[in-house]
């Protein structure tokens, strides 16, 4: 019995809508309209193909589907993409290592296009060629699950999409139910009750509070050397030629512009352990969740080398950068390629404004990697000086500010000081010369803090620059400055400016950042005072990669591999019987077709392994199920053992009777038993 045409067409429309809705589940990953290009063709084309090839072979439909998928990718890439298949294979990893929202790049969107297309193809063909009711919705539901997983930490709500999926699945089940159209209305209350239950019970589930986030287990790209020369090494060079214009910033207030963060020290150089992740513009917030000032900046490049992007601490959103990557730990920004002159982007930063009490209550964070001191005799000296400097300070924050004041008071700033920040150089700086640039001051501060058990790092950036009308600050190479930061629990990283003469509000005529002003104010309160003087320095090599990539985490691979295997198994379990029946039905020659019909019937009767049974014995066992079994057995015997070739009409009749027996078996077998048999590949 064939389903009415309207049910078939409505089913295909629903399958397309389901696939499209499942694809729309990626809206938390790609919030923009670009998602439409990835979703709509992938959802609609297979349904159209299925509608047009219903009575054609499956291979033809699949070929057309593949061609249309390819056409969809051309629309997505706006041309032919040579690395298309590699993009499809790599996109999932790209998405898992991207901070949401992701850039709507074709090489990422192609995954959505492919998933939606696959769901639509499987769904449409299952609907077209089987009598199952909701099996056609299964691929779309799986795709929606994938979308939920990828977009778990994105913005926006899943509720409307989930509701739409539920409604469409219910609608599909109703349309596939071969009962009068009016009966379909009876399913509406059931769907409403189900949706209400989901709404009420959903938030009570344990995973509702802390949903599983695959990105937490994704293996991030290894630290990499993003510039041939470390920004810390450039400090001295830039100071030698201070007039070189690097960039301008249009901002409400002057701030120090951070460029790079270096948190690993090996005794010779400071390097960065940053794991940069692609992002569509959002930058994860820091640890501080209290009072903060929002600073909006528009940065225009003039001659800043490298791919680092300056911004005030701490950026939370960046626009105007294509191929932006961010280190979630430090908030450092990186462009995909070297920005040219005139390149402009906008940054919104959140500058922490903790209260004095917050500072007094702060305790250093526990992080062994950030308090590590390289082995060497210098540690003793650094510890002795640090203890001397912080003598009498009972709180960590006071120790830090006293350390800052100590360096400012006991060493001088000198632009011509030898560059470098190795342990021996810093020892020479602290014991002998007492002259250096911010490179040495920041490094010495960070290492002395580490001997006190305070996690520290070095930041390379710029002072606010020269103020111009309209809130524009012109930053030149001479404005470069390194400072140190200490990490406190809850507060996050707090900056300290130990360099005298260059980082104080009274040292020069340049604009001084509000952060420095505040830091000086606090230092006055927490210490017994101290003075400083200016001087200068020179670079060393910056950090590079430390760890090799080990591929994605096994914790991620295992469930994904399991999911893939599960989906593959379900696919095989679903398609295998249909495929086998189809192969038997289309076997070459009427004789083979008759034999195929008989074997199919034996399978349907659960007698696949009873090979010792003759046709008559099969009839004796199961003849009560259908009156078509005996004639089918006769035809089968004739085809196998009679001397004549069997007529094609007999083969048709055999299949008609086989189908009738199959329907009779289905009517007698509970749905659960059928599902069990199918899942067990019986």
């Amino acid at each position, binding site marked *: 019995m064939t389903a009415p045409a309207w049910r078939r067409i409505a089913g295909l429309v629903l399958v397309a809508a389901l696939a499209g809705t499942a694809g729309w589940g990626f809206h938390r990953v790609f919030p923009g309209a670009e998602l439409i290009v990835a979703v709509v063709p992938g959802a609609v084309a297979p349904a159209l193909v299925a509608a047009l090839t219903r009575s054609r072979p499956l291979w033809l439909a699949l070929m057309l589907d593949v061609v249309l998928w390819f056409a969809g990718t051309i629309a997505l890439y706006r041309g032919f993409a040579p690395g298309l298949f590699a993009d499809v294979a790599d996109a999932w990893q790209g998405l898992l290592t991207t901070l949401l929202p992701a850039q709507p790049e074709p090489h990422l969107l192609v995954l959505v296009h492919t998933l939606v297309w696959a769901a639509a193809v499987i769904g449409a063909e299952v609907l077209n060629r089987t009598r199952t009711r909701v099996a056609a919705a299964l691929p779309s539901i799986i795709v929606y699950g994938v979308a939920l997983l990828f977009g778990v930490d994105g913005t926006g709500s899943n509720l409307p999409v989930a509701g739409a999926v539920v409604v469409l699945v219910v609608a599909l089940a109703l349309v596939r139910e071969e009962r009068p159209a009016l009966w379909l209305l009876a399913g509406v209350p059931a769907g409403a009750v189900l949706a209400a239950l989901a709404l009420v019970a959903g938030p009570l589930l344990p995973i509702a509070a802390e949903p599983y986030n695959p990105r937490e287990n994704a293996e991030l790209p290894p630290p990499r050397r993003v510039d041939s020369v470390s920004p810390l090494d450039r400090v001295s060079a830039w100071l030698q030629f201070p007039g070189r214009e690097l960039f301008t910033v249009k901002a409400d207030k002057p701030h120090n512009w951070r460029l790079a963060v270096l948190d690993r020290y090996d005794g010779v150089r400071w390097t960065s352990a940053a794991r940069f992740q692609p992002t569509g513009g959002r930058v994860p917030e820091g640890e501080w969740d209290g009072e903060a000032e929002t600073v909006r900046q528009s940065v225009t490049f003039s001659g800043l080398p490298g791919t680092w992007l300056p911004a005030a601490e701490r950026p939370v959103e960046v626009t105007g950068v294509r191929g932006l990557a961010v280190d979630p730990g430090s908030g450092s920004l990186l462009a995909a390629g070297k920005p040219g002159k005139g390149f402009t982007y906008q940054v919104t930063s959140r500058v922490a404004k903790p209260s004095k009490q917050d500072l007094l209550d702060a305790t250093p964070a526990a992080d062994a990697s950030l308090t590590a001191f390289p082995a060497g005799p210098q540690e003793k000296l650094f510890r002795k000086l640090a203890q001397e400097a912080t003598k009498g300070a009972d709180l960590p924050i006071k120790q830090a500010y006293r350390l800052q004041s100590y360096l400012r008071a006991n060493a001088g700033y000198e632009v011509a000081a030898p560059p470098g920040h190795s342990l021996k150089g810093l020892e020479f700086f602290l014991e002998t010369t007492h002259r250096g640039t911010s490179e040495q001051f920041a490094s010495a501060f960070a290492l002395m803090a580490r001997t006190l058990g305070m996690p520290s790092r070095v930041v390379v950036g710029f002072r606010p620059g020269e103020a111009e009308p309209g809130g524009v600050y012109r930053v030149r190479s001479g404005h470069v400055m390194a400072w140190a930061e200490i990490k406190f629990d809850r507060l996050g990283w707090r900056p300290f400016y130990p360099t005298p003469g260059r980082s104080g509000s009274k040292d020069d005529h340049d604009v001084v950042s509000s952060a420095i002003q505040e830091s000086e104010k606090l230092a006055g309160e927490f210490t017994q005072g101290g003075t400083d003087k200016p001087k200068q320095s020179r670079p060393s090599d910056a950090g590079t990669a430390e760890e090799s990539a080990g591929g994605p985490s096994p914790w991620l691979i295992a469930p994904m591999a399991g999911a893939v295997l599960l989906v593959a198994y379900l696919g095989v379990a679903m398609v295998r019987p249909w495929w086998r029946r189809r192969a038997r039905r289309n076997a070459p020659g009427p004789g083979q077709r008759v034999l195929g019909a008989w074997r199919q019937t034996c399978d349907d009767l659960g007698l696949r392994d009873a090979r*010792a049974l003759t046709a008559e014995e099969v009839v004796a066992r199961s003849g009560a199920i259908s009156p078509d079994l005996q004639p089918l057995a006769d035809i089968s015997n004739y085809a196998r053992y*009679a001397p004549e070739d069997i007529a094609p009409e007999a083969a048709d009749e055999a299949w008609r009777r086989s189908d009738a027996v199959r329907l009779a078996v289905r009517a007698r077998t509970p749905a659960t038993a059928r599902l069990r048999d199918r899942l067990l590949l019986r």
Partner: protein
Amino acid sequence: MTHYSHEQTQQPAQLAGQFAQRFQLLAGNIEHVIRGKREAVELALICLFAEGHLLIEDVPGTGKTTLARSIAASVDAEWRRVQFTPDLLPSDITGVSIFNQAHQKFEFHQGPVFANIVLADEINRASPKTQAALLEVMEERRVTVDAEPHPVPRPFLVVATQNPVDMDGTYPLPEAQLDRFLMQISVGYPDHASEVQVLKGMPTGPQVERLPVVARASDVAGMIDFATRIHVADPVYDYIVALCAATRTSPHLRLGASPRGSLALLRAARVKAAAAGRHYVVPEDVKALAVPVLAHRLIRTPEAELRDVTAAGVLGDLLAGMPVPQAA
């Protein structure tokens, strides 16, 4: 019978249909007398049309003789009964040459074996020499006296009976001679309803003498010839050979089925196929006849006998584990 092939191939199928019709007519006719024993009747008829001989092993009074008489009465054939006793001589069966003084020559006087259907009652009570004489006629289908052959009429069916109880003073047929019988069956007691019907029919019920003749001997001969032309597909040959070969390697059997056994099974299967209105043999035919045709040819091992494993049981196990041919 429905036909699934092209028109020009329908003639054998039609002939098979006619065969089946007549077969069923005969079986139905005999069943008027032998009530409730359709299977035994059909097996006996299969023996007749396969030109084999039937050994019935059963207790007295179950209708062995009546069965033979009913077959003879239904086909308008001559039948004789020979009660085998220890003093029965071979010539009492085959016949003797007597000198005719009037014609001054020896004349052959045919024995009771010269009939279409011969009932050899309690064959195991005769001496081996007499048994051998009968078995030789069964195989050769002729009696040779003074170098002159005397063929027995066609059709020719020997229905021998054995009594499984009261075996004292008997001469059990040796295995080699059992092999000469196409089938060994047991009529068995009728079921309750059939026995009631038998009682109700006495004395006015159907009698063998009153059975109508539904086929002439010449018709039977034609049906025998037709049965030999029934088609057997190669996979069915393989099936028969595989089954017989399996009996030769069964751990429960000391002696398996011989090639004569396979030939017998094939002949019987052909008749059964025709009796079902088919002009081709299906494995079902082989399976249905395997036990009556082969079981009496098998010799069990002592261990199997001790464990009460029957030859029929062994065959049943072999059939249950042997895949039927799947492809033409």
